[in-house]
């Protein structure tokens, strides 16, 4: 029987940038919650600073970012930089949205661990987290 002391991984999911398209982020948040993770959804129009604040306050291990406006090359790395500035590089960052292949390579180089593009099965995201955090209790 798993120890009750082990807490599920906490994930802050956030919409960065100005666009309000929140279908994807909400579907992913629900799926991660159903999979047994603790999910905190920040809501819309979060600046990189606000996202990192939320992650530190919530003691989250993971930040999930969603964007559909095309500003990912600016805002995703800005979250990683803010984590560095706040000495919180143990928090890992993943993202999703309308992100072309070339940009994915560039974002990974800049510290975004994983990008999920349109059409990704929810189970792929869950599987990735399971692999990344094998000790987290899960449903």
């Amino acid at each position: 029987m798993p120890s009750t002391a082990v807490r599920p991984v906490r994930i802050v999911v956030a919409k960065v940038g100005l666009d309000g398209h929140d279908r994807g982020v909400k579907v992913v948040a629900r799926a991660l919650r159903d999979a047994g993770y603790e999910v905190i959804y920040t809501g819309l129009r979060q600046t990189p600073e606000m996202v990192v604040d939320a992650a530190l306050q919530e003691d989250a291990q993971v930040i999930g970012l969603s964007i559909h406006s095309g500003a990912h090359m600016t805002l995703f790395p800005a979250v990683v930089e803010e984590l560095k500035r706040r000495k919180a590089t143990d928090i890992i960052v993943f993202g999703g949205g309308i992100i072309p292949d070339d940009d994915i390579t560039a974002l990974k180089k800049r510290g975004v661990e994983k990008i999920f593009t349109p059409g990704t099965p929810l189970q792929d995201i869950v599987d990735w987290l399971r692999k990344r955090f094998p000790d987290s209790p899960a449903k």
Partner: protein
Amino acid sequence: MKVRARDAKEVWKEEFESSPARDDGIETSTISGIPLQPLYTAGDRPRREEELPGQFPYTRGIHPSGYRGRLWTMRQFSGFATAEETNRRYKYLLANGQTGLSVAFDMPTLMGQDSDAPTSRGEVGHCGVAIDSLADMETLFDGIPLGDITTSMTINSPAAILLCMYIAVAEKQGVPASKLGGTLQNDILKEFIAQKEFIFPPAPSMRLVVDSIEYCAQEVPKWNTISISGYHIREAGSTAAQELAFTLADGMAYVDACLERGMHIDDFASRLSFFFDAHIDFFEEIAKFRAARRIWARWMRERYGAQQERSWKLRFHTQTAGVSLTAQQPELNIARTAIEALAAVLGGTQSLHTNAMDEVLALPTDRAARIALRTQQLLAYETGAANTIDPLGGSYFVEALTDEMERQAEAYFKRIDEIGGVIPAIEVGFFQKEIADAAFRYQKELELKRRIVVGVNDFTVDEEEPIDILRIDPRLESQQSERVRDVRRKRDQARCTNALQSLSRAAAGTDNLMPYILDAVRAYATEGEIMQAMIEVFGTYTETAVV
């Protein structure tokens, strides 16, 4: 004879039930979850009086001549980077046979911010054109005679400002406002419900919408003052019936607000227009469009007592479903878009945007944009779809589905009334939750392969061929920021400050704000400054996030 017909149907039923069925586990309900019969017959359609196009309740179309009189307007939504670049794209589209313009603005413009605002970083020119002041608008329409074309502008919270900029550009071209034709999206309710590009709280947001409707009724009589939009509701994950119901409920909320202002229904109703999604479930979409006309006509005539026929007619623009496009095997999007566009045409749309195959990856390239436009031309001129009015009218299936759409919409109207109306329903998150639930249900069906998206959860390929996409030059942001700073340096500052102060004072009172906004625009106040002058009085809105 009647007895024999019934027997024949019973025979069919027995034969159907004893035939082997496919056991692939794929849903046979519509994409929205409406259960479907394998066959519809005369018995599925309650007898109703014959409906005809151009006649109440307009189920079969608002024009007696359908597309024989006039084809739909081919209106491709377009805008990116700077006003110069977008102006070039407009001239290209017009030269290729496009018949109306439709402006896509970038995120800072949609959110009422200037390009040099700190929160605009990374966003300038990405998902539309960057417009900061009248100077940009002059460039955008340079060499395009505004008296001869119609323009649609997809803008909501700052809609009044952009409309004033358009009016001011026309003035400079010598075109009076009374000659201008076009559409302003200006639909703030669906922003609170679905797309979330709100700035002010609901009450002052509604005031601005009513101000623009009231102003245009006098000064810009040919302008469609609002495009009440289901598109964004659908794209956010709603079902077809939710799209239909929430959109028409929004429409009625605007009507109520205008009546409260003291306007007469027949003075503004005919300038209200609608905007729907054309999703991939072909027959359901056609039924949705037909039901929309019937419901609106009935409500306008019977509930609101509109006397003039033109007030009863629901006119709509359609865009094919962006959300149905796939990043995988993107060429398939051409086929999807063609099918969706055909549904819009068979549903009797007044104007149409067909998505480009690469829009799931970025803004369209010239080539992809041309294929999308050509798809409409192909429908109009090759397929024969425009030759007969409402060709699916009388189809047992489509008529039954039209009735079902109407029934589901009416059930939603009752629920919204019980909550106290559209704005209270927004404030308690009713629409947001209904939509999120529907989106999640659909996603689950995909995961379980009870629905198939070709190239995504079946019929996949191992190696995707890369396709060319449009890239926005990263230097654009600093150039555009410099441009807006230049406008601020060169204008008559005293005149601009006065106009902004007058606007703030008027916002605190009850005057129609349009003339004040127009003055500020003419004085080259920037969009961000004009918004700020109103934010000081109205404040801003934050939604409680519901997952």
